[in-house]
């Protein structure tokens, strides 16, 4: 009996995954077509404004606090060993490589992912998506692809904002509050943080953005009827986005580390 229930649950999850893959495939197909047709650009601009521009303040605040908190937490540890001038390298490498991209993406999942699911979910239960389809327009092309495209293109840009404010936040706390020498702070940072670190953090943004948009739109398109259905879909979308961001981050950590070690095998030793 239990085995049967587990098997059923497993089958259900595989079916879900299959449906999500098909949905993602259609969304990427529609995105290709959207890029080729300038007629759809206004839809993408609108979504870029909603998803990207309006997220800038919250992403910047997240980045700034991450940098500031890292400075406060790490200072006493490094000061005890007389290494406080190396605070910059610790903060900046953590911000640009991991915390900036991941926390910016998580913030985006909460702010944008929830809104996307709620909007599309409400459209679904009030038959607005069926109305788009009944008028001979592909709802994936009209509703999903502009959102995915906007998220995909703007998440890396938002990560740059988070990184920038994280670096500045850490710098101000270190230099103004803890009186660390500004020149030494930047010198050590420049020695420790490479373009590779900054680049990989931003590169991950494309995948985080894509995952947030696809999961949120899928949950909106498949949500159950009623207010409870939309609410559940929003929760599932956020949890799904959060787990995916962390999982993707782990996968990229492994892959990018392997690539780095292949091309620059001696650098980690220096």
């Amino acid at each position, binding site marked *: 009996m239990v085995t049967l229930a587990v098997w059923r649950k497993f089958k259900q999850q595989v079916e879900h995954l299959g449906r999500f893959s098909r949905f993602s495939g259609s969304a990427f197909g529609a995105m290709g077509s959207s890029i080729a047709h300038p007629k759809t650009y206004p839809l993408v601009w609108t979504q870029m404004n909603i998803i990207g521009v309006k997220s800038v303040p919250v992403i910047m605040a997240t980045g700034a606090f991450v940098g500031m908190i890292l400075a406060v937490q790490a200072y006493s540890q490094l000061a005890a060993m007389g290494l406080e001038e190396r605070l910059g390298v610790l903060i900046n490498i953590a911000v640009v490589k991991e915390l900036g991209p991941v926390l910016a993406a998580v913030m985006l999942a909460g702010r944008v992912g929830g809104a996307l699911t709620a909007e599309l979910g409400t459209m679904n239960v*009030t038959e607005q998506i*069926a109305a788009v*389809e009944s008028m*001979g327009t*592909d709802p994936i092309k009209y509703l999903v692809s502009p959102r995915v495209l906007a998220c995909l293109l703007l998440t890396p840009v938002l990560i740059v904002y988070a990184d920038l404010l994280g670096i500045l936040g850490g710098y101000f706390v270190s230099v103004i509050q803890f009186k660390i020498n500004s020149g030494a702070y930047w010198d050590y940072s420049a020695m420790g943080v490479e373009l590779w670190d900054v680049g990989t953090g931003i590169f991950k943004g494309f995948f985080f953005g894509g995952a947030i948009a696809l999961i949120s739109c899928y949950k909106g398109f498949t949500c159950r009827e009623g207010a409870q259905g939309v609410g559940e879909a929003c929760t599932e979308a956020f949890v799904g986005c959060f787990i995916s961001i962390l999982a993707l981050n782990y996968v990229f950590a492994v892959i990018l580390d392997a690539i780095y070690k292949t091309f620059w095998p001696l650098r980690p030793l220096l």
Partner: protein
Amino acid sequence: MTRVEVKPGDGILVTRNLTKIYGERVALEKVSVAIEKGKTTVIIGQSGCGKTVFMKHLIALERPTEGEVFFKGQRIDQLHNHELAEVRTSFGFCFQMGALFDSLTVYENIIFPIQQHREIKDFKVLGELVKLKLALVGMDGYQHQYPASLSGGQKKRVSLARAIALNPEVVLYDEPTTGLDPITSDVINELIIKLQRELKITSVVVTHDMKSAYKIADRIIMLHRGKIAADGDADYIRNHPSEVVRQFIEGRIGEADLAALRLGGTKFPTQFQPEDFSGT
């Protein structure tokens, strides 16, 4: 009941042995119907009998488990979505709750299908088109309102204006008078009749409002448990000998259902007093 086999060319819309099964529930079972061009066909039946499912198959919003759907002789139930896009421009669909895009104004709602399928860029022309469509349903002047500020009847009228934006050959109405007061319902009925007469539109109306059905229908089809229970004009349906049909058109509960209700207990939850639970 003897069935005549329908052929793809028998009507503008034809379904042959249309069957839809959700899990273990049979929503439609071998429904064969030929819908005549330029006429109003009304589908009636109890809630959950498969009316809306049937109508969604006519525009391929749902795909059949078995059977075929033809539009002007062309089989459409197997077409890919991008092929269906062109077919769907020949249809207008009036959803039960209007399904207007609530983030767009009335004007933007109506130009939506036009912008999607026609190359009209001149805003003056678009404005004139919207004005014309809204005037047809008596809603000119509401162009800049949002759906949230409209009443139920107004939403349905705007939805109708949007449905006819591309001058469709067929308009499908899903319960157009549900939730409206009797006068607004009659306004909608008159609009359906007007559009059919003036624009020569083929109308398929799903409803359980018999007053509306008798008024607008050239032909009434009754669905019962996913099958056709009756098919004919208003007079034929009004005098139908079948008990199932009579019960529905007279709005009368069946003996079996009534008996089940009587057996369902004499005390309803609201009749319980707090002391009923305090003895144990």
